């Protein structure tokens, strides 16, 4: 019986270092592994003994693409531990900067890292050679996200203006309001890009996922709400560890997240969309319908469309905050040190990112745990890979390898995050 091995030693167009290994014996799939070899950086360990107020800035360095997810998760957890809560005005500015992160991260992934897969091209520069307008539109859209983060946070990678309790300074009204014109352009541009992507030839694939996300009764959850699933889970963020666990497997420097019954689950755009569709804006729902999407999307290859729909939503949400923006006074609430335990969970572009900390009397960290989205998605990625390989055994090795890489990129895996991730090897025997 012939053995086939498909192997990608260093996956491209992902954030961080990962690999893929698939071994087949005839029609039988012997092994499918999504490996993370990004070196471990030991954040939870060196946070011990540090002042709790340092956690947002330190943990933001887990990921240059989604620093706000870490800043917010850590800030929420510290505020809970210290027994304070921020004002609605401060919370609105937090949502505003988070919209910026969703826009820049979603457009980076959808237009520059994932779209080339559907076009048989190596990168966005090659797309620009055949469709310069599409790439220029995407770059301008991505820049809106970065500008928003700069105006509110000082810079787009590792913002400096955020702190436990709120912001060091109130973002200037004139600068915030000046973002409105580009955001309004961005609403239409997101739809245009979504519609352009909706013409892609999507692989025929569906799966009955367990979708886990935050959910809030009043708004499309970004940095508020409870943890829910499409199978009836509905828990407070502080109950995360009662329902989920992480396991350490030898092929990965990232821990694998699972439900307590051992089953895999999916976090990210598809989960948020399925669980919170009703709370999307009318415009975003209209774009989804124009792209041919229902209220639940079970084809993981169509996550690229959901990312653009969420980008449109983020532009609309940011525009509505910007339109009525007044500088919050105060711009932060006082957070005197004390002993306590806190939990924080927000929707990073790739899915829920959970933090929990314990503090001593001086407010120093005695315990830290951070569960990033890509760790949680790893088992589901391997399930998806197995299904996709089984459905496409007739493909040549080169085509199957391409399809496997595309399957992984459906998740916008952030390997830098996950190690707190990828080589593809396919063996066929």
């Amino acid at each position: 019986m012939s053995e086939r091995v498909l192997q990608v030693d260093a996956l491209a167009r992902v954030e961080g270092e990962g690999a893929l290994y698939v071994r087949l014996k005839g029609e039988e799939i012997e092994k499918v592994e999504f490996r993370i070899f990004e070196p471990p950086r030991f954040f939870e360990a060196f946070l011990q003994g540090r002042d709790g107020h340092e956690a947002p800035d330190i943990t933001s360095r887990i990921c240059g693409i989604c620093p706000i997810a870490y800043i917010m998760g850590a800030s929420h957890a510290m505020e809970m531990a210290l027994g304070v809560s921020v004002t609605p005005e401060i919370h609105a500015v937090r949502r505003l900067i988070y919209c910026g992160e969703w826009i820049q991260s979603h457009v980076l992934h959808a237009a520059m890292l994932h779209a080339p897969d559907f076009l048989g091209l190596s990168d966005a520069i090659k797309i620009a050679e055949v469709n310069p307008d599409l790439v220029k539109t995407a770059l301008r859209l991505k820049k809106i996200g970065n500008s928003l983060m700069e105006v509110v946070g000082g810079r787009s990678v590792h913002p400096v203006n955020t702190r436990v309790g709120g912001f060091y300074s109130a973002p200037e009204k004139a600068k915030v309001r000046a973002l409105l014109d580009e955001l309004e352009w961005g609403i239409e541009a997101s739809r245009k890009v979504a519609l352009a992507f909706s013409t892609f030839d999507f692989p025929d694939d569906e799966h009955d996922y367990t979708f886990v996300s935050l959910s809030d009764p009043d708004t499309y959850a970004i940095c508020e709400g409870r943890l829910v699933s499409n199978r009836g889970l509905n828990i407070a963020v502080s109950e995360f560890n009662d329902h989920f666990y992480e396991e350490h497997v030898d092929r990965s420097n990232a821990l694998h997240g699972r439900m307590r019954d051992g089953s895999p689950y999916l976090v990210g755009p598809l989960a948020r969309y399925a669980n919170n569709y009703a709370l999307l804006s009318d415009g975003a729902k209209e774009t989804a319908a124009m792209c041919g999407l229902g209220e639940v999307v079970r084809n993981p290859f169509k996550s690229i469309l959901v990312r653009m729909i969420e980008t449109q939503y983020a532009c609309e949400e940011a525009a509505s905050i910007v339109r009525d923006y007044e500088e919050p006074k105060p711009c932060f609430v006082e957070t005197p040190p004390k002993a306590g335990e806190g939990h924080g969970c927000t929707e990073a572009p790739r899915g829920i990112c959970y933090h929990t900390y314990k503090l001593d009397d001086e407010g120093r960290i005695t315990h830290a745990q951070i569960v990033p989205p890509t760790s949680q998605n790893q088992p589901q990625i391997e399930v998806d890979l197995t299904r996709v390989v089984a459905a496409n055994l007739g493909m040549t090795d080169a085509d199957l390898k391409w399809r496997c890489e595309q399957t992984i990129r459906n998740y916008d895996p952030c390997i830098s995050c996950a190690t707190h991730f990828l080589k593809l090897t396919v063996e066929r025997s």
Partner: protein
Amino acid sequence: MTKPKLAVWKFSSCDGCQLTLLDCEDELLDIAGAIDIAHFLEATSEIKGGPYDISLVEGSITTPHDRERIQEIRKNSKVLITIGACATAGGIQSLRNFADVEAFTSAVYAHPEYISTLAKSDAIADHVQVDFELRGCPVSKHQLLELITATLAGRIPRVPKVSQCVECKLSGTVCVMVAHGTPCLGPVTQAGCGNLCPSHGRGCYGCFGPKENPNPPALSAHLADLGMAPKQVRDFYRSFNAGAPAFAEESKSHE
């Protein structure tokens, strides 16, 4: 004329510095027109072999494999430039340099035997000759563009090595330490971020690393006068450039 070949390499890092290149939305297509992007895994699946005219290296050396990989990259690169605090000083992960890495591994991972890691997180220059270092956690987009332009033109990039204090004065930013008693690493930190923290009302946290010829003991005395306890002073120096010699030494004198 053949375009110069650019390679972007990643070691232990958050990807934020190479992302800064993709964040040059207005300049990206022009850059791609002027250079041949031969190896940039985060952006393209097309991979061309060396030798490379310019290699940009992000991240620090933390594994036995990475120690070998950087040697190969150096051999294949005419000019090797490090970008960001991980590559120039070991990054936030160099906090392990002050602790027992085995204890760290078992704190994060259930099976420490699966993990291959070095006891220290090293700057790239600790292992190979580096032609230019661009500071920052993350690097500044403006400095990165200047670096690429200058390197293509064959000149040294114009990157000032003065302190953050100079940037405050040039920007007309009120001194947060003198006016508000806010602890600030500005006097010992290299300028270049764009005067971000002080202009937002917070003290500089040193993400661009030590300036040329800094005097940390003088600053530490002032920080103590402001009421900082020794371990607070120690931790102030121990963040994203904890591995930079001037900051590492000063932090040890407050243990």
